[in-house]
């Protein structure tokens, strides 16, 4: 029972991270119908920036554990968001009118570029987050021990997701984003500045991805320049699982995938851990490409 509970909490924490990254995929896909392959790498850069800022500024001594995390998160969010906007300007905007798959290739190129620049700057080795960043508190939930950090990660990701959802549903800008996702042309005719909406999407998505990168650094303690791909693919799987373009879908898909992976790794085979997510991806695309919460759309002939 305790083993099960450990997998459950671990799955939810990792799932929360997947969900945060998945939001970036799903929002960009919603507005541009583009799989932003470089999104996973923005997440990875978030993890590296977090580590750099942490060691360079020596924040840990001055602010105390939670202050450090908050300050880091704020800086990483902003920096990765800037990178996201730059990415859109350089690699995607010139291709807005081009064939859809041209943008996909450009996204792949951007992904390769980001990965390799990080490798050149930081080296190919794993880098390690200071392990005493957060106190290793263990709390008891329903009589079972759970590391505090898991709860923090889950809570933080859920808070961000709910905030995003409220923003999208309740504000005027959120409505503009939704409108642009449904029909860019019509949105433009209604006086919505679609370019600005797209830029905003490239602020929000990468910012959340950067936050997720920081979380992974703090949670697992080590980061690598290739981790963007693997997390990116899994988060994309989560987005597809929930129904791509659908914001609540990304959250549900992320948590679900985290759980599937944690339980499959624990009860089936740890060596095949990564393969489970890809199997889920392939199965969902074959059986129900619109995902769990997605709507079926007829292809126009």
């Amino acid at each position, binding site marked *: 029972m305790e083993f099960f509970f450990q997998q459950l909490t671990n799955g939810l924490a990792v799932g929360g991270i997947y969900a945060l990254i998945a939001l970036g995929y799903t929002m960009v896909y919603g507005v541009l119908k*583009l*799989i932003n392959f470089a999104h996973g790498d923005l997440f990875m850069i978030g993890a590296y920036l977090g580590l750099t800022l942490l060691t360079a500024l020596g924040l840990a001594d001055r602010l105390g554990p939670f202050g450090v995390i908050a300050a880091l998160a704020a800086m990483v969010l902003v920096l990765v968001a800037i990178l996201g906007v730059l990415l859109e300007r*350089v*690699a995607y905007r*010139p*291709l807005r009118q*081009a*064939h*859809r*798959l*041209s*943008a*996909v*290739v*450009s996204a*792949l*190129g*951007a*992904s*390769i*570029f*980001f*990965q*390799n*620049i990080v*490798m*050149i700057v930081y080296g190919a080795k794993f880098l390690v987050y200071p392990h005493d960043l957060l106190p290793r508190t263990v709390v008891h939930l329903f009589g079972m021990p759970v590391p505090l950090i898991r709860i923090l990660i889950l809570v933080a990701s859920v808070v961000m997701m709910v905030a995003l959802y409220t923003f999208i549903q309740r504000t005027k800008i959120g409505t503009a984003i939704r409108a642009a996702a449904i029909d860019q042309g019509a949105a433009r005719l209604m006086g919505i500045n679609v370019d600005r909406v797209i830029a905003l999407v490239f602020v929000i998505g990468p910012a959340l991805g950067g936050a997720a990168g920081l979380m992974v650094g703090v949670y697992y303690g080590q980061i690598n320049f290739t981790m963007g*791909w693997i997390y990116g*693919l899994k988060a*994309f799987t989560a987005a*597809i699982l929930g129904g791509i373009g659908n914001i609540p879908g990304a959250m549900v898909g992320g948590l679900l995938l985290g759980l599937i992976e944690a339980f499959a790794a624990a009860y089936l*085979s740890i*060596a*095949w851990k*990564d*393969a489970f997510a*890809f*199997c889920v*991806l*392939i199965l969902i*695309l*074959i059986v129900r*490409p619109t995902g769990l919460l997605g709507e079926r759309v007829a292809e126009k*002939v």
Partner: protein
Amino acid sequence: MKNKRWIVYLVFTALLMASPAMLNRYWTDVLNVVGLYVMLALSLNIILGHCGMFHMGHAAFYAVGAYTTAILNTTCNLPVLWLMPVSGLLAGLFALVIARPIIHLRGDYLLIVTIGFVEIVRIALINNVFGITGGANGIFGIDRPTVFGMKIRTPAQFFYLIWFFVAVTIFLFHKLEHSRFGRALNYIREDDVAAAGSGIDTAHYKLIAFVIGAVWAGFCGTLFAAKMTIIAPESFNFWESVLLFMIVLLGGRGSIPGVILGTFLVIGLPELFRQFATARMLVFGAVMIGMMIFRPEGILPPQPRAYRLDGSAEPEEAA
């Protein structure tokens, strides 16, 4: 204009054929690697270039071919080159099984799924699936190939073996391009609804394109295993697929000369600038973005097929 092209091709071929005599073992081996990639990229070109399917899991078929050869050679002692058809066949069968359910997926989804497949294959190889792949260390002790009783060992000997197969591939694929089959793939790439509306069984042709590409990747696997005598899962990782993908896009989708040029640029050129080896992928990433913006059709895009319009109607040989 056309004659000039032929002169270029002839001079290039002559230079290439004479090159082992002029180059040392290292550079001959570089050309061998280029040759293998030319063959692999030409096989991907059928799927990605001609049929327009965004397939990024080609390394999976290559792996099936290489492992088939390695396993059958080390366990049953079958001669390596005889295993080439077997490897091609198995890779083709594998493609048939995995491609069937995913063939209808839209471009970007197909891309993601094929990435998933190549990763699953790699994980399976590392985990020593069925107990025959040797796990993360792979398989070693694969025999050298024998041609007419002569054992192939030096880079120069391998050069002629590999480029012989490249030549056969170019010849056959050139014919394939200039046929009903090649045209059908292009129609599907351009507009698959219109292709179906013109009477083309799009699902069937997509599947066959996949299978042909996979069979050839399987052949390449045999050559690779024979050349290396040791193979491991890391030779077939996702980045191999990315390189192949890049070669085809950079050189020119659906163009044999383009793909050959692309291979020399992507695989050969970095050897000349070894001091910048780490920056290689960085440059490729930036080039991919730039290409899509400024020259999406590639460096040497295919020329329209030529036909004799005077009624005697035999497709002209125009590469």
